[in-house]
């Protein structure tokens, strides 16, 4: 079932890392959809597979990682089975990527303007003047003086670099922009201003975003829907407001309680005991059961499916009304 406004639909996607000791499943049967203009946040601890998921969707995985099974439908086309040359027509024009550290994501020996030009020329034949004017426009969009087009990445500040990356991602005003922790390398102030800028651009250009981060509080202010990942699986997904106001999965609950709020009543700070499982040997049944404060007998042997509650999908037996 492809939703009418779905820009992206992921179905049962599995991604494996081929190691010496056999394949390790980093992403396990993840399904989600992103509607037109929607801001979907994906949160989870380090190592939960969220970045792998993102790059699998963008078809940017490198060996030893590879898609083991599942589909990714982008605007009605199955991109998992596409060859590289078929994909190139979609890349950047229809969907683009913003990475975590612009210092690493920008070629250090080329100026920002040259890298922008590469992106333009890869898909359209434009004259030098057209490229120059469009590049300048993009820079101004994100609040950078176009004179910096001639600068090299190391000559710009961290915040400017991130914004330059976002400008690049919008070169062709794609339908989907995939962002992998774009704010993690910045200080809090720069983070907030970048997020506001992203939100503003999104409203202006109408692109959908998948925003991966480990920072719950940051993403909660800006996303429409939120998905929580744990050990390679999505454990809860729903409207951000709902997930935040009433977290259902025990893991989500635990995450919420780890982020103290500066307003409101004083709450004792708690974490989640234990540590994430080794994905080479995941626990049987529900992956969270060793750390779950509300674990039941069946959690140890059966894998929970998604159950609906108040518009959220939760992968937890606690919400299985049928039993």
């Amino acid at each position, binding site marked *: 079932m492809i939703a009418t406004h779905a820009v992206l639909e992921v179905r049962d996607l599995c991604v494996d890392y*081929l190691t010496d000791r056999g*394949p390790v499943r980093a992403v396990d049967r993840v399904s989600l959809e992103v509607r037109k203009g929607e801001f979907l946040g994906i949160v989870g601890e380090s190592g939960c597979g969220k970045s792998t998921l993102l790059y699998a969707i963008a078809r940017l995985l490198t*060996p*030893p990682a*590879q898609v083991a099974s599942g589909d990714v439908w982008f605007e009605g086309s199955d991109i998992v089975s596409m060859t590289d040359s078929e994909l190139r027509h979609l890349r950047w024009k229809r969907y683009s990527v913003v990475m975590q550290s612009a210092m690493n994501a920008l070629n250090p020996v080329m100026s920002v303007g040259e890298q922008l030009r590469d992106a333009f020329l890869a898909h359209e034949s434009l004259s030098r003047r057209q490229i120059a004017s469009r590049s300048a426009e993009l820079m101004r969009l994100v609040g950078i003086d176009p004179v910096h087009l001639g600068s090299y990445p190391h000559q710009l500040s961290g915040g400017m670099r991130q914004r330059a990356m976002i400008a690049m991602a919008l070169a062709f005003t794609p339908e989907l922009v995939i962002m992998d922790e774009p704010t993690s390398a910045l200080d809090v102030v720069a983070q907030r201003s970048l997020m506001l800028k992203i939100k503003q651009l999104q409203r202006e250009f109408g692109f959908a975003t998948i925003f991966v981060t480990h920072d719950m509080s940051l993403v909660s202010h800006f996303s429409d829907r939120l998905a929580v990942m744990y050990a390679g699986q999505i454990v809860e997904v729903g409207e951000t407001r709902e997930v935040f106001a009433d977290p259902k999965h025990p893991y989500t609950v635990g995450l919420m309680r780890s982020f103290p709020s500066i307003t409101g009543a004083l709450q004792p700070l708690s974490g989640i005991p234990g540590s994430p499982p080794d994905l080479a040997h995941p626990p049987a049944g529900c992956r969270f059961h060793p750390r779950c404060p509300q674990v039941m007998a069946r959690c140890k042997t059966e894998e929970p499916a998604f159950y609906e509650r108040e518009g959220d999908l939760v992968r937890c037996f606690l919400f299985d009304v049928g039993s």
Partner: protein
Amino acid sequence: MAVRVVTDQTPLATAVVVGRQGAARALARALVRNRKALAGLSVFGFFVLVAIFAPLIAPYDPTALAFNQMLQPSRAHLLGTTGIGQDIFSQLVFGTRESLLIALAAGLAATAVSVIVGVSAAYLGGLWDHALNLFTDVFLVLPTLPLMIIVGTYLNNRGLLVLIGVITITGWSYGARQLRSQALSLRNREFLEAARVRGERSAYIIVFEVLPNMTSLIVAIFFGAAVYAVLAAAGLQFIGLGDPSSLSWGTMLYWAQANGALLAGSPVWVLAPGICIAALGAAFALINYAFDEIGNPALRPVRTKK
């Protein structure tokens, strides 16, 4: 001589902090699993065995002048005889001893100097670091064979010790650079902070905390130095700067060339020691490269599931 390129970013075996016993065992396990290392170690082991059991393997006394000269390979003389009537095969077998000795001794000596200079530079810091660095770079740039030739000729003593010394002088600089880089990166790690806070003296820290974590790099450098030693020794002996009266593969080549073996129709005399030199050098080189692969998994042969 193999071309060895030195850069500041020469991939280092990433120092994984392990306990002192763990380092050696982890290393050994990783080596055995690597095919290149296995091949190299087998060849090396083979030569060690030949050197140890030389009197049992060689059919004749290598220095005996008892036979006819320049004989072709035959059943009596597997590789023929030399220009003055010695059995080439026996020479080859016994020559293994000296060639191995030179390679290992020079390799060890060069590695030792590398460790001392490299680690000292990292720990003394400041002006000492700058000076030692310059010192290392200068030696790195100096062309090795000409330098060896000059020192060797001046010393006019063609003994084994001189040969080993000369190889050491020219062979330590490559490793020193790498060791300094890694020592620097280790210097700032937390477990060293902990040792300092405990009140341990610098020397103790260096010997008991830092060096064990650099084991894998040091061993890798040793094998690199050994490659260099094998080829340098061969080169020097070939032009006559070794001790022509001693018995090693390189001196065999010298005599072969002096007797015009190639043109006189006894190519085996030239080929045999050459193959041994190449094989030993290749063995060390393979082991050395295996360390690169162990430290940087991205370099290993890629497996793709179709």
